[in-house]
């Protein structure tokens, strides 16, 4: 409610100029200005003033406290954590190597079984291929079924293409690329 009458004592220069201009004709101008001049004289306006005795001291100096660990000790802690990590890693790697050796020994123990299974499978596929060849190439002139392309009688391990010749192509691709360490 005091808003229209708020002219602070610390005025803007324009305000002082206006007041000085307005002062001689204050009695002749509108009601608002007369009221203000009267109030200025009385200084009973509630203004936002500093506390009595002024403000306390203002803390303006730099404040950079030394705190925390020193650089050397932080470095030491980092190196310590690294060394601890390495020690744990090497221990576990040795343990893994022992486990791997155990797995390899198990494979060595089972090798005859696995090899026999694989050989039976190979022979079975070759037999099936031979029979199919006999059925298919009945009418082809000059074709000897089961003819060996080599001049020798040695056992030659059949390549995957020969074993999977009459089967769908996915099976050959699975045999060739199904188990891959690296992608």
């Amino acid at each position, binding site marked *: 409610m005091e808003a229209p009458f708020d002219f602070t004592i610390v005025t803007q220069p324009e305000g002082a100029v206006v007041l000085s201009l307005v002062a001689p004709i204050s009695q002749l101008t509108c009601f608002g200005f007369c009221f203000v001049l009267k109030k200025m004289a009385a200084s009973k306006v509630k203004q936002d003033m500093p506390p009595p005795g002024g403000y306390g001291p203002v803390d303006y100096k730099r404040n950079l406290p030394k705190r925390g660990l020193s650089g050397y000790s932080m470095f030491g802690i980092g190196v310590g954590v690294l060394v601890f990590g390495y020690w744990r890693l090497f221990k576990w790697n040795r343990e893994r190597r022992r486990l791997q050796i155990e797995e390899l020994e198990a494979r060595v123990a089972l090798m005859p079984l696995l090899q026999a*299974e694989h050989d*039976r499978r190979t022979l079975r596929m070759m037999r*099936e291929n031979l029979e*199919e*060849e006999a*059925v*298919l*190439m009945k009418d*082809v002139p000059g074709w000897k079924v089961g*003819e060996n*392309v*080599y*001049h*020798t009688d*040695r056992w*030659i391990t059949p*390549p995957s*293409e*020969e074993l999977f*010749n*009459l*089967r*769908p192509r*996915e*099976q050959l691709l699975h045999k060739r690329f199904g188990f891959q360490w690296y992608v």
Partner: protein
Amino acid sequence: MLSSTMPFIDIQSRLGIDLDRWLLLQSGEQPHKRAARCHAFEKEFLECAHGIGQTRAKVECKLEMEDFYECMHRNKTHKKLYDIRQQRIKMEKEKSYVTPSHHTGQPDNTP
């Protein structure tokens, strides 16, 4: 430096070094002692063709050489397989052949 199988001046043996001899022969010493796929064929061919000269070797060791090449490149094998496949396609078009069950894609879990 890059030697042939029958070099004229054998620099590497004279100097006792092994610059590229280690990679010339499949039947030589391999890393991890793993034999090559055509080790036997190469050995047969070299045992036949050693010391008799290239012209004679081409005549006398023809069979071993053909087997060695066949092992390496499998040309005859692939041609044979291709012919069988083409014949099967032809017969299937004429409806005179049906693929047996073990050659279709069904999984076979018998041992």
